């Protein structure tokens, strides 16, 4: 299952964790756990955006990249292969 997930990720492009769960015939929670595991193994990195605290005061997306606001923002993982 983890290998199939990794193969999907290796294919590149944007991926939706919920759709991956459907493709792998598992739950989004399982995909979330596997993504965290892949991060632990060093395959993935959690996306770190610029610091929102430095953004212009008029920034309408301020808070979008705040990982503590998971209720309304996305958790983004990145995979790079050279």
């Amino acid at each position, binding site marked *: *299952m*983890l*290998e199939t997930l*990794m193969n999907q*990720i*290796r*294919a*590149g*492009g*944007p*991926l*939706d*964790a*919920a759709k*991956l769960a459907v493709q792998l015939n*598992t*739950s989004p*929670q*399982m*995909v*979330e*756990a*596997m*993504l*965290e*595991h892949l991060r*632990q*193994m060093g395959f*993935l990195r959690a*996306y*770190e*955006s*610029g*610091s*929102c605290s*430095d*953004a*212009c*005061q*008029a*920034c*309408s*997306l*301020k*808070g*979008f*990249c705040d990982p503590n606001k*998971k*209720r*309304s*923002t*996305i*958790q*983004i*993982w*990145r*995979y*790079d*292969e*050279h």
Partner: protein
Amino acid sequence: MSVATRPASASLRDKHKRAGLPMIALAGQPNMGKSTLFNLLTGLNQHVGNWPGKTVERREGNFSMEGHEYNLVDLPGTYSLTANSPEEVIAREFILRESPDVVVAVVSAANLERSLYLVSELICLPVRLVVALNMMDVAAGEGLIVEPEVLEAALGVPVVPITATKAQGIRELLYIVRKALEGKTAYIPRLPEIRADHSEAYSDVLKLVAAHVPTPYPPDWMALKLLEGDLEVTRTMQSALPAEIWEAVHDILIQHDDAMLAVASGRYEWVGRMVRAAVVRPRLGQISLTERLDRVAAHPIWGLFVLAGILGLVFWLTFTIGAPLQAWLDVVIVGGLSKLAAAALAGAPWWVSGLLVDGIIGGVGSVLTFLPILVIFFAAFGLLEDVGYMARAAYVMDNLMHLMGLHGKSFLPLFLGFGCNVPSIMGTRVIDSWPARLLTILIAPLVPCTARMAVVAFLAPAFFGANALWVTWGLVLFSLITLVALGTVLNRVLFKGERSAFIMEMPLYHIPNWRTVGLLVWQRVISFVKKAGTVILVVSAVIWALSVLPGGEIETSYLAQFGKFLEPVGRLMGFDWRLTVALLTTFPAKENAIATLGVLYGGANESGLAVALTQSFSTATAISFLAVTMLFVPCLATVAVIKQETNSWRWTLANIAMFLVISIVAGIVIYNTATWIGL
């Protein structure tokens, strides 16, 4: 494993062994309630120190039950038993070397998918395992039905449901632990399996290493860890094995370098089976609603139409509600305040009256009049963020960019640029390749930020009336096409051969929390007002001073002389010297365009700034000015962050020059084309 990682807890253990105390170890991933259970059992009868040679906290204590005393060791929180961190090494070394009589694995009933992974490793070790199924209340609150007896049957080890925070199920847990200590519980663990194409390799490695595995490590566990690529185990076995055997083992490991994933995959399949057996996850209405909405909102094609429609709605609201309110504030409040101040300062020196009426009220006042426009922007984006839509917007945009060949790595930082270019440029740190990162930094300011959009939202209705929506759309599209064109070149030239993926865990759609949205709007409005009271106030005052000095006439002022010096370039784009100066003042902050126009035109027409501007310029000039504003040199904060991130004045100045050229060329082309077609 190396001697250095061996927990030197032998003296303590020996002391407890001498005292005849059974030793129980608590294992679990972080945040599973392990410490709560430890505190509950030991109370004040515990001591805290460090694991020898480590900065990791070691907690140990005693507790009694029904006349029997037990020794309890709280192992560090670990996700697995692979040597990824000091905590994981400590936990597994303790279990293997100190052989606790029972290991209690604390897992979360609310997140079994994650917490059972550690159990899949513990269950393979030669210890008695009891699973404490914690957070039963949280699981119930989330609508999950977790069946402990089914999980017990599936795992083959005792499972006890508890809620440590409410001290529920603790007595039952201790009863089972006691029975386990006495060997009176059924213990037929069902172990994860390794995939068939790696099982032969596993057997071969096991055969080669079995006779050489140092005590007390189980050979089968060591063989599995070798396949997983565990560095500590690899080092240990490399030094323990004769060279020729190590070479044979090494050859197998090289041939099966994907075994690391295969072993973990086998464990996840095992976890999946356990979860499927023991957890009933009712399909919540909210989830199915999210799925239904996402069929359209996150669809590669329809999602773009939804995004375009939502942006159109935001613009429409801005022009329908925000623009009239802005005009009203401009005429009634700013105009009224100007008259009032002029009357009150009739006897004051000319410069006091001028500075306050034309400079501060004309400049800062004009900027503050577009608060309604900004409030609609902030509220709309805050609402979209709070309901969970912004994640979908990022997803469909990423999809589109990916189809166009734009690299995902550069897309996400660029997307943040719609809010502000500063975090957007800082976000390029995700790009490892320096040329690619540099080029992304250089093109990032092409994304129209909120401040730029607000300026356009202010000016577009004044210039174009009912057509403002389409003009604004066109300008956004124009910026994005330029961005995609440059981004595609970037991808083809600099990201060639690289692959990248972004996996997004999107939130469920929520009913908006109006308090959160209201608070967000309030905070941003306050921040904006502060900006108006600082940067914009200073620029307004300076612009006013330069517009009246030295003789009090605007046409002979220093500002006019400066503007007229640059006017030949401005004329190519249809600008007079005032518009040229207004454009230049966007450098400290984009909103200064309005402040400057307010100072230079505000007093000229009692109907307000918007009407004054409409009467002063042709449509061709207006559209050219808006396009140039969208593409002009980034604001000071953005330039500063470009300098910080590139650590080069050369690239910073090159970026300024690039946007100067792009905006001027675009202005010339647009103005002349618009004039040619008779606008």
